[in-house]
């Protein structure tokens, strides 16, 4: 288990990460999001043992994390981080050996992953000769080759086509199935939403949004229920938990103030001629935008 407990990091007068806490259990994926300069990279570097937190603790299986734990961690940085003059095989052996594996141990794993990503024929091609997508695949392999307990994936789908996105997505799922903890970071919030149960959104080092994605969605104060009805639903506008009702012919959008009132709304509509009842939970993107907006208003 990875535990980040009240971690703070300051550079000069600038607070990079402020009082950040979260936990990841084996087989779980955490989405760590944030705008540029929000403190994600600093958080990664503290987890990787490059920086020490000014206060707070980072524990891996109950022990304070340090650079000596690097063999248990895999890291895929946002930018391409490969040596262009190396061949794919050399690159993978290099990063694998840095993680404490022997060439003998790495050999079958390299074969497996190159075959999985259809790169076997490019084994001896230099990195600089590869397409961006293939480079990203090599980078992904190098981050998981040593079978780490924790993997940090920063924009893993960058430069990939839908087919390769699917390949990496399946690889990530297979990792969680074997108990690997994953921290997933991406500007594509739909990807994060599809992978992660838990999410943290950082803004200027402060977590603006954190917790289980479904719970966050249900804890909001504005929900839209799409209802297709043959009756006029505007009569419901007087109900206290209904904020507004708009319609486009028979399709109504009913905005309510709490997820808890959905059952009540459903009961109210049961006497009417209803063809469709669809609760529209806010997307992660909506939640993030609302959180940032709220934070800006408070400031």
């Amino acid at each position, binding site marked *: 288990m990875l535990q980040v407990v009240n971690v703070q990091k300051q*550079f*000069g007068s600038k607070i990079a990460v402020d009082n950040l806490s979260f936990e990841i259990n084996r087989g779980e994926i955490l989405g760590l999001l944030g705008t540029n300069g929000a403190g994600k990279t600093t958080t990664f*570097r503290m987890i*990787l*043992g*490059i*920086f020490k937190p000014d206060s707070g603790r980072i524990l891996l299986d109950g022990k304070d994390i340090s*650079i*000596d734990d*690097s*063999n248990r*961690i895999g*890291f895929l*940085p946002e*930018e*391409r*981080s*490969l*040596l*262009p*003059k190396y061949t794919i095989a050399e690159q993978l052996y*290099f*990063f694998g*050996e*840095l*993680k404490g594996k022997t060439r003998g141990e790495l050999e079958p794993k390299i074969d497996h992953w190159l075959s999985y990503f259809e790169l076997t024929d490019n084994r001896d091609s230099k990195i600089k000769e590869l397409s961006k997508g293939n480079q990203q695949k090599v980078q992904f392999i*190098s*981050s998981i080759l040593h079978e780490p307990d924790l993997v940090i994936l920063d924009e893993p789908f960058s430069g990939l086509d839908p087919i390769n996105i699917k390949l990496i997505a399946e690889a990530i799922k297979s990792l969680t199935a074997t108990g690997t903890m994953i921290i997933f970071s991406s500007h594509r919030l739909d990807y994060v939403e599809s992978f992660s149960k838990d999410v943290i959104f950082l803004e200027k080092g402060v977590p603006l949004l954190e917790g289980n994605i479904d719970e966050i969605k249900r804890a909001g104060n504005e929900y839209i229920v799409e209802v297709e009805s043959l009756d006029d639903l505007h009569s419901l506008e007087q109900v206290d938990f209904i904020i507004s009702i708009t319609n486009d012919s028979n399709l109504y959008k009913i905005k309510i103030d709490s997820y808890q009132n959905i059952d009540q709304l459903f009961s109210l509509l049961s006497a009417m001629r209803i063809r469709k009842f669809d609760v529209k939970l806010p997307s992660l993107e909506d939640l993030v935008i609302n959180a940032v907006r709220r934070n800006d208003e408070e400031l």
Partner: protein
Amino acid sequence: MKNFKVLLKYSLKPKFSGRKQVISYALLFLFPLLLIGFGGQLALNLIESEEVNDQIADVVYITPPGKVADALSTNFSNVEIIDETDQVITKMSNEDDVTELIIDLDNNQITSDFNIGMQDSYGLNAVINEVRMTDVINGLDVHTQMEITRANSEFEYTNKFAEDNDNNSVLGAVGFANTFIIYMIIIFGFQLLGSEIFEEKSSRAMEVIITNTKPHVHMLVKVCSTLIFLVSIILTILIGAILGIVILYMSNPDTVGVLVDQLLELLKTLDIAVNFQLLIFIIFTVLSGLLAVLLFQIIAAVAAAMTTSYEDYQKANGPIVILLLVPYMISMIGIEALAKILVYFPFFTPFFAPSLYLSEDISLVVFGACITLQAITVIVLYKVLAPVYREGLLNYSTSSFKQIIKRSYKNK
């Protein structure tokens, strides 16, 4: 020292494996081997042919000393003519305290106590040869071609007054060669190390590498691998040169023996005995050179880590080249007083210490002390600059060097 071995292996691999590297090393090995082993043979042949002429000259001696002395008496008031055992065979004056010219006919040498100038030395040759030619023309000892050759041979002029200066020139040459070699090694190592670190940084591979190893270990690896590479180059050249000498010796043992004798003669001139002390001096010279290279390597590593573009790195090289020009120029110009001060500056020790030791301006103990100072500086510099290196590696912003240095100690 986590991952030191792995990093070192992968840092050395591209320097020693691959077709280009094999060809480069083969050329480095073959060049001195061929130059000395076979080119040396040609040079020796030339020397030998000159020596044959000299030999003829030494054997045949046709000019009576008295005649030469007579001819010179119009220009010089006090002339001695000696034979090969340094015995005076003709003396033009009885004044023992002042001798203007000593003419050694057997060794073709004229020695004076003062600088008679080039013009006069030509004049002397002309006078002596004129006497000889007259003898030849007059039919004296005109029997063989050898005699004519002897009659036309040039005398080597030596100004005893300037003997000390000559000694200094030998020392200067030693100093200059030493400076030049170290200068080249430092500049080459600086470029090599810098570009290697910069390549890892600019490709962002550093982001991953640095998550597996401590930055100061990474710096140490890069410095060590470059040093190993430089030493391997020097050794390759040396081995090639030694084998070249062996080939030369096998094909011409006598002449090589003469060269060895000449080398020993040079050491004798410099008042250096071939003994344990000489061995220590050689070890000190090599050690001092290596430590200076290390010092500059550490600076190169930090400079490369701090820059974000190759142009910036090249700009960072500027002050180093200028710094290196200081000992280079001082060695060339030969400002002894400055050299005696700068020898204690660890970056400059190998530029000055060997020649100062040879000229007896410093002792081996002082040389050793300078090396100790260098070693301490290497350790201190490594410790002091390691945080800057780490901060630099992770920095991709356009922060100035000053800002990075400030940050590196704040974020320590």
